[in-house]
């Protein structure tokens, strides 16, 4: 079996790499938690591209129901079609549309399935998926058909810990918490994304970034994705590295809250 070793665009901590491979080998869903912007969603893309598999993404919203991921039976369309005499109304299967989970199960080849931000959904949502994720199959009563995974998809689930997940669900997952990258890892990450960056600018940016994260009173601390945007902005505008010691250009890229910008201004004055 092929192993995931990171990709040219995604630098992961060794523990994360191992955990990904453990989850793949055990055939269990991998539950990822971590600060927003630490690359939970991007990881799925990296896995898919490095193992050369198709990626299916199921974005969870507050109104998403477990059923939506399996299949949707479009009764209304069928009723309308029967009125208008459109052909094929007898065929129930025409009106059963598979959701992302259904697609992943019925796929002819192995896929990577990303269930993004599972904590956005209703409290009971994860419980409704226990059986399906465990057995990797479900039954469609309308067509009397069982959709069963030919190849267990690699399932990644991300959560921002807005809601707690039920124990029964957690027990079935392999868990990893993506810790915020330390300076060395961050340097590597930035290099991968901006290979042409000046050495001095990178040093200055890292210095400024981590001291900003440590500034007391910042509510929404900037994360990896913001760091990357910021470094790109710095590189594009051609700001000399020395300026970073005295000022923080494009602070709005790093800090998204008005209060935080205010806090920054005050701490800079002091």
């Amino acid at each position, binding site marked *: 079996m092929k192993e995931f070793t990171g990709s040219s665009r995604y630098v992961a901590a060794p*523990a994360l790499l*191992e*955990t990904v*491979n*453990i*989850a793949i*080998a*055990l055939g*269990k869903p991998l*539950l990822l*938690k971590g600060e927003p912007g630490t690359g939970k969603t991007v990881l799925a893309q990296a896995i898919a591209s490095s193992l050369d598999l198709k990626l299916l993404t199921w974005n969870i919203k507050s109104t998403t129901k477990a059923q939506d991921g399996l299949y949707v039976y479009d*009764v*209304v369309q069928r*009723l*309308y079609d*029967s*009125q208008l005499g459109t052909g094929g109304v007898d065929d129930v299967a025409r009106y059963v549309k598979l959701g992302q989970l259904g697609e992943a199960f019925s796929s002819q080849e192995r896929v990577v399935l990303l269930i993004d931000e599972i904590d956005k959904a209703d*409290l009971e949502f994860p419980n409704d998926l226990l059986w399906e994720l465990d057995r990797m199959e479900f039954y469609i009563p309308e067509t009397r058909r069982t959709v069963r995974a030919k190849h267990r998809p690699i399932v990644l689930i991300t959560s921002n810990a807005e*809601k*707690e*997940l*039920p*124990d029964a669900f*957690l*027990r079935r*997952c*392999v*868990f*990893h*918490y993506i*810790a915020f990258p330390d300076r060395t890892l961050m340097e590597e990450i930035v290099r991968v994304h901006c290979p042409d960056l000046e050495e001095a600018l990178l040093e200055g940016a890292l210095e400024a970034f981590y001291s900003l994260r440590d500034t007391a009173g910042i509510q929404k601390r900037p994360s990896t994705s913001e760091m990357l945007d910021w470094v790109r902005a710095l590189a594009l505008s051609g700001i000399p590295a020395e300026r970073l010691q005295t000022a923080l250009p494009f602070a709005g890229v790093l800090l998204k809250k008005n209060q935080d910008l205010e806090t920054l201004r005050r701490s800079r004055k002091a």
Partner: protein
Amino acid sequence: MFLSFFYLMRDRGLRVSLEQWLTVLQGLRMNLHRSSLSGFYILCRAVVTGSEADFDRFDTVFLEYFQDISREDGALTEELLRWLEHPELAQADREELAAGTGMTEKDVEELFAKRLEDQDGEHNGGSRWIGTSGYTAYGNYGKVMDGIRVAGDSLWRSAYRVAGERRYRDWRGDNTLDSRQFQAAFRSLRQISGGGGPEKTELDVQATVRETGRRAGRLQVEYTCPRRNQMKILLLIDSGGSMEPHQRLCSLLFQSAGKAGHYKDLKIYYFHNCVERILYTEPTLNYRNTISTEWVLQNLGADYRVILVGDAMMAPGDLVSHSGRSSGWDWLMRFKARYPHIIWLHPQPAPVEHNYWTGTFERLAGEFDMFQMSLEGLTAGMRKLMENR
């Protein structure tokens, strides 16, 4: 041997299930730990923990279990040898395992044997792990020693180091009750009825049939508003003073009530010791943010379900002071008369012995249905609130 690690984790409050442990063993058998202790650390942590709040506890247990091994490299080998030595599962262990999980010994054995069988076909890569059957898989730990290469192995050291750093200490919650369970209890407060919703999103089968019939069979699809929870809740929380030690529990309750959501209305007010003339809108009990109790009684209808939260222990004078004004007791009685659905939640266990402070508790218990703020208490309390009066 490793079984004792499993039990140590359970002892130290990590809720590891047998299923999870078997998964770890399966992982070991597939050599997912790459014959290294740091690999074992990662594998084990990924499978048995479900939240970063558990990481610190896991690190602590891991350290506790492996700390006996001296860090001196020389001594390490021998001690590690002894540690990894392959005890066949003692009969006593098996019985203990069975007792601990409620499965019979045979169940456990079968389950495990089946696991091994399942794996044989697919993964014979980890040659060190081939066991003839059942429990002898444990027996091969001795061989793994070759793989670990203890003396010069920095990986082992790194697992020890990572665990030793206990980087996840801050996240440790020690949440004996997690808010999810509380939320689930609050969920049971439901009184669902249709109408009133802003959007018509649900297919109304009745109306569709009726309208279609009226139009002689020409389909007319009708929609209706989804049904909504009509429940209204009034939460009155004792804050400050003797309630300080229970603050965390109270904020958990408060958050759960909010998160469980979907109430038609949820009002939360605070009081100090006993309900008086005014109620506070914030737990800090600031005089600037108050609301008159009279207003609450006048404006919140009898259909509100009322939950009083407090330890109900106060100086008797607080409850019944006769200074011409209404006493706390009078106010409470007015609440009781106004709201047929009212319960009292107390964070501490109900007092067993009588003393100065428990007098008020006993007196209030005569008037209100009291429930302890535990999972069972809360569930029972919610059931009480849902009863028809």
